[in-house]
């Protein structure tokens, strides 16, 4: 297992370099220039000023040279200074990672807590009205655009009913550790973010549970006179959960990516919203650091999936 993890980590290096080259090229070669954007409308700005700024931000060198400079610094976790904030890009991102992870983990928990039971119920009550309702919910969960649902929920729960706040992560003036207040803020965004996952898991679980329930070992368990609950939860569910673990691969990175839209709708100060704004302002260091961060998350997330996969299903060897 140790060799397996080590090998996977070594493989990750060329992947990350590839991602960094592609991002660097796309960002630098797309139309627009951060300096011209920065000084647009500024009175009496001169060509000399623009050249000085270009030099100060390291944009006067050829792009391949800029990349090499960036790579050398990035290895030391120095992603440069944000063009807009004049602060360390990586630190700025890290200050928002906690908020995004909070949202992603809450959404993940909701996905599992709601999605898994729904799938099992649908399978056990196959053909019933409950099964039908859950399947309709599964389709709706995929079909409803999250930004739209988010806005509708804000109008209902925040603007009309005033049960929940409409924006942000914490009420102004509340202590950063006010858990109850944070809970109220996270409910709507986490629910909207988790919706696709709930739909996914309920669908997968339904199919897998039905499949497993028809297999020989389940019939044997029944024949042995085991209690129905033991058969379902101990024998069937453990096997049915294997594809769920597979689906978990990349889920964290997926949630971080999906959070971009949700963070915009709910004014959630996370990585997605921050990166989106950086892309608009052509803040290269932030865009580059964010891409690397999400890539690392993705790689780690897939690695964890494979390890979990090996643990859940002893037939799979880590090779």
């Amino acid at each position, binding site marked *: 297992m140790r060799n397996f993890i080590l090998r996977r980590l070594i493989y990750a290096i060329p992947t990350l370099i590839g991602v960094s080259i592609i991002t660097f090229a796309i960002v630098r070669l797309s139309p627009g220039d951060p300096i011209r954007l920065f000084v647009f409308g500024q009175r009496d700005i001169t060509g000399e000023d623009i050249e000085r700024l270009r030099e100060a931000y390291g944009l006067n060198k050829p792009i391949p040279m800029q990349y090499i400079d960036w790579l050398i610094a990035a290895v030391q976790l120095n992603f440069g200074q944000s063009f807009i904030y004049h602060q360390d890009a990586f630190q700025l991102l890290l200050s928002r990672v906690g908020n995004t992870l909070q949202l992603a983990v809450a959404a993940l928990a909701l996905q599992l807590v709601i999605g898994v039971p729904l799938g099992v119920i649908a399978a056990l009550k196959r053909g019933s009205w409950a099964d039908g309702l859950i399947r309709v919910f599964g389709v709706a969960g995929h079909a409803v655009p999250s930004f739209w649902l988010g806005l509708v929920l804000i109008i209902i729960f925040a603007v009309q009913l*005033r049960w929940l706040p409409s924006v942000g992560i914490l009420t102004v003036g509340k202590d950063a550790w006010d858990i109850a207040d944070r809970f109220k803020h996270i409910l709507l965004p986490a629910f909207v973010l988790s919706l696709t996952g709930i739909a996914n898991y309920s669908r997968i679980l339904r199919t897998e549970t039905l499949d497993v329930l028809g297999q020989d070992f389940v019939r044997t368990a029944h024949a042995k006179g085991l209690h129905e609950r033991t058969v379902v939860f101990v024998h069937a569910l453990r096997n049915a959960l294997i594809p769920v673990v597979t689906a978990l691969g990349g889920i964290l990175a997926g949630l971080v990516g999906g959070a971009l839209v949700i963070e915009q709708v709910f004014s959630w100060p996370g990585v997605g919203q921050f990166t989106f704004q950086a892309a608009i302002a052509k803040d290269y260091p932030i865009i580059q650091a964010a891409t690397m961060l999400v890539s690392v998350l993705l790689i780690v997330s897939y690695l964890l999936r494979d390890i979990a996969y090996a643990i859940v299903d002893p037939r799979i060897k880590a090779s």
Partner: protein
Amino acid sequence: MTAKQRTGRVLIAVFAATVLVATACAPGGPTASPGPTGTAAASAKPDQGGRIIEGSTTDIASMQPALSNDTSSSRIINLIYDNIIQQDPKNGEPKPKMATFSASSDGLTYTFEMNAKANWSDGKPVIGEDFFTSVKIAGKSKKTVRKSNYQDIEGFKDYSDGKATTISGIKVDAANPKKWTVKMTKVSCPAILDLNTMAPLPTQVFGKYVTEASKDEIDTAPENTSPTVFSGAFKFKEWRKGDQVILSKNETYWQGTPNVDEFVYKVVANSTAVTNGLKTGELTFGSLAAKDLADVQTVDSVKITKYQALGYTFIGWNTLSPTATGLADKRVRQALAYGIDMDAVIKAVVFGEATKNVAHHVAVQWSFPKSPLEQYKYDKAKAETLLKDAGWVKGSDGILAKDGKKFSLTISTNSGNQERETLAQVAADQYKQLGIDAKARPEAFQGLVTKLTTGDQTLEATIIGWNLGGDVDPYSIWHSANVPNPATKVEGFGFTGFKDPAMDKAIEQGRNPTDGNCSTAARQANYETFNKILNEHQPYNFGYSNNVLAVSQKSLQNFNPASYSTIYNIHEWWIKK
């Protein structure tokens, strides 16, 4: 609440409970209901305490005046550092704030004296040296965009280039440290506001970044993001990045302690979130998008204040375009002004919340022309006559053509800006009725800016906007020296390519008068000429100037925003309990 409203709420509640069974929580949530719906009562004794929460769609970038270049950062900087001069909130004329000022008879030397009461939050007086420190910071910083504001100070360039250890043109009075003089290399009418670009900064904090040995350390100074000493109405407390900036009142503020305890700058994702926050009472004040006005007008707990924005949205014609050649002809551009029903456009695009504009300066600026200008009232017949006079006649397909070339016109604007995209579409539709093959093309703002400033000739017409804060000098936009030229690599904002010697002269005389007369009356005369030329030649369709729709909770008192400033009297604001 009426029975109808109550029934509506019950229905919504039932629907909501169905939608969100999994996450429903008990009622009695966190959102404070709006405060009492009091009316403005400037004469009443102000209640003390409370918190003002302003909603904004962008976070601040820095609290260092030399590095900030955005309205959010400026808001916070203006609250924590007072300027020496303030512009009249209604017409922009410069007036003393923390310092008085006067100009010498030759217009080259300015004398300032700081108010005796002006002090820092650490108890030290604000002095001339603090002004000097902020100018030195602009000189030392490599990432600032403020150097151009100080370029006419004697010795500034040498200091900025590292050839001098001090700025020879700034002298602080040895006998009276509150008094200082600034000598300019030439008469420059915008100088008084240019010198006010950055507020004085505490030498006791920033002095270490402007020593002879210091280089550009100021660009990464921790005090830029976490300032410690203040001269403004509020003191910095905390910056929760991407979420909020929290300020607390400056008890020793020289104009009097503010009535409220805290000012919070709350960042939300978009204008819809601002609207929602104002409706729920989570925000104390903020600006509204015109599309949300009707909705907010039904809310009892808020007050709406309208005033004209300091800027305008326009359609710029590329008079040098090799493809839309018609734009080179004044008559065609005039036809494009008569041929668009701007009043109808304003209704369609910004729900009537704007004023039509026919020249560069807008009505709230003191330089706005007093003599009547051609208003270009919608007149399709006149537009058609002008086009005909210019040689453009309709072909069998209904499209105008001249010398066998059809009149096609692409109107570009920045994508994602819903207002401008709609304007481009509406304008294209109206020009089609004149027989012009017009179409709208949204493209990314980043790319558009590069094309405009480098003189990319693929642009035929562009919808964009100018913010006209600061001095009224239009040199950077309209003087021929700022017409970009890809061949000579000259960049600038004169992307219409329009040049006029008489207009150049008027701009020069309004900026650097040969007689040294920078009075508003003298400058006004030059800007009359300038605006008249633009009004006649129409290098832009000058479009419209939006209304700012400032919304505040009725509990907020003394909130009287105007075009030049929202917060000029913030120490007098109070919240009725």
